[in-house]
């Protein structure tokens, strides 16, 4: 009997991520593409890419769990779960001692507490505002004429920081403009922006509390400077997955697997 296969697809505001698992929980394929204007179509493309990579057909897949903002639009999904539960499960799979997940996504950020089995106990999310999200960094990268990779340069923790006092994306952008006008070095502005995000995340972390190991997920975890700052603030190291963007999809695939095996 061929192994049963499971898919998790996370249709986020910026990227659509897909993970294909076998029934032992081994990852066979990971796909990340831009969501663009049509989430449903992005999910289809990611699915087809994963299938062609592994030389499988849709008929070979036993169950698909969709998550992320576009979860309702995924036609081939057999179930849907919020990205909050999925990030909890995904982080637990990668780092089993995780008790706290900090997910900084494109459109929102969240802090999730999970139990020893990866089940969500409590969570908090940013309010209707782009402060402390990937979108904030994108806007600033654009303004600074840097790409996101350049924006993630590890900062010198002792070095000078240009203060960005506003957490509002629009106001912070004005601050960046005036700092540039004053010929403030870009590295200092980058430091200031990273601090601004960490401050915003920190208020969510303190509102819910930290327990167990901390795992950082979502695309913004690729920002090395931000990770350093967050670790300094937490006073302990954080787990950063090799591919932090895929954690939601990984969790979704595991939820599909678990749901299937429980019948």
């Amino acid at each position, binding site marked *: 009997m061929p192994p049963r296969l499971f898919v998790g697809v996370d249709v986020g505001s910026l990227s659509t991520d897909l993970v294909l698992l076998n029934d032992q929980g081994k990852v066979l394929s990971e796909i990340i593409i831009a969501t663009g204007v049509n989430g449903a179509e992005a999910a289809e493309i990611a699915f087809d890419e994963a299938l062609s990579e592994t030389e499988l057909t849709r008929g070979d897949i036993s169950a698909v769990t969709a998550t992320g903002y576009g979860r309702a639009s995924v036609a081939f999904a057999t179930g849907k*779960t*919020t990205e909050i539960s999925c990030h909890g499960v995904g982080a637990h799979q990668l780092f089993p001692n995780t008790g706290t997940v900090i997910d900084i996504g494109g459109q929102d950020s969240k802090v999730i507490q999970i139990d020893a089995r990866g089940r969500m106990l409590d969570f908090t999310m940013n309010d*209707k505002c782009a402060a402390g999200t990937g979108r904030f960094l994108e806007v600033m990268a654009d303004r600074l004429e840097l790409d996101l990779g350049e924006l993630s340069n590890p900062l010198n923790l002792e070095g000078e920081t240009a203060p960005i006092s506003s957490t509002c994306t629009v106001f912070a952008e004005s601050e960046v403009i005036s700092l540039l006008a004053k010929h403030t070095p870009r590295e200092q502005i980058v430091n200031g922006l990273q601090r601004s995000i960490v401050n915003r995340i920190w208020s969510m972390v303190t509102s819910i509390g930290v327990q167990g190991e901390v795992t950082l997920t979502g695309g913004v975890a690729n920002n090395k400077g931000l990770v350093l700052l967050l670790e300094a603030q937490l006073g302990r190291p954080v787990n950063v997955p090799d591919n932090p963007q895929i954690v939601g999809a990984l969790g979704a695939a595991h939820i599909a697997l678990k749901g299937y095996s429980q019948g």
Partner: protein
Amino acid sequence: MSLAKSLKFKFMKDYGAPALLTFQNFKKRKPRPIPEAFGPPLKANQRLKEILTRHYFLSRYVPGVKKVAWVTSGAPVELLRAFDFYTIYPENHSALVGAKKQGADYCGIAESDGFSQDLCSYARIDLGHMLSGKTPAGKLPKPDLLFCSNNICQTVLYWYKAIAHELDIPLIHFDAPFVTTQQTEADVRYMAQQLQDMIPVLERISGKIFYLDDLEVILKRSMESSQTWGTILKEMQAKPAPMTIFDAFGHLAPIVSLRGLPVAEDYYHILLEEVQDRVARGIGAITEERYRLIWDNIAIWYKVRYLATFFAERKMNFVSATYTNAWAETTGYLDVKDPWNSMAKTYGQIILNNNLKHRLDLMKSMINDYGVHGMVMHSTRSCKPYSVGQFDLRKALNTELDLPAVILDADIADERVWSEQQIQTRLEAFCETLEDQVSAT
């Protein structure tokens, strides 16, 4: 008072209003189909609609017949009733505008006049109404008197001051000291004295003489209506609960705005009878009630249907709310034999004028009495006194009772603050936690 106007008011009361209601029932469109997740609707809904339609309809014919007062929801209206004021509740009217999804329009009018977007949306809608005359209720009478109490918030005082200034009319403010630990005798004396000092002012504005006997009759009615309302809410302890808290948000209108009048007293007997009958026959508000929830804070008026359906489809029913409970919580203090002190105790200790410890204890006992599995807290930009402290309450309830809870950042009547996608994700994640926890036990 003109005789012609009085005759017209009487005619409208006896013939006009009944004719309007008959006409409305006649032209009534086919009712919207009820989603399968819901049980049969309450029959009392029809009566409630009639009462409110009649109240707003008659208010047009009131000027020149009775003096009109605009009153805040927590003010001791019984005193005004002794002078036969026709009362309008701007908060109820703003909730109505919100429920009709017109809040943003009215708020916009107030904002163009310079009022801040951070001001309570009930206030902005009311100011928008005052500035434009717009209302979904046809026409509202201009007030002769404004009557407010800071027992619900400080905003009402400045909101009513703005109206008093614009319309050049008197404003009476009932100052209720905040209960930081417990109400003191000095607080009670201070409030009771204020109430008595209002008598000559009210006599002058209304042109009527005060009789203590009248006040006693009104207080008795008020007390009975509130107690009946409290009994109705207690019936929701039954499993399944005979109505949802979303129903109760609507049925709250008479106890808020018609308190002390016979119509409210009669209405709650009708509703109680129906609710008790449903309990006896095991009829639930939703078809299958697997989880029982509690709501904190004022309703999100423009999303009541959305939220009711969202939860009913997941077999979740709201069986209690701190908000609906507020008009039953302190009426036990009312005493017709001691009107002044008992009004001071009743109105001085309502939930929004009481400390956080009180609120925590109250919520704990409600969660226990109503067999609650989870809590939804609406953090509303409009009502700071209600929303401040919710994070601490949530933490305390989560730690002490292991109660899953979610906080929704929204607004009572300004729909521009609503972000459906974000709210939906939060609510679904909350449901996932709740289902996990309840199935694990």
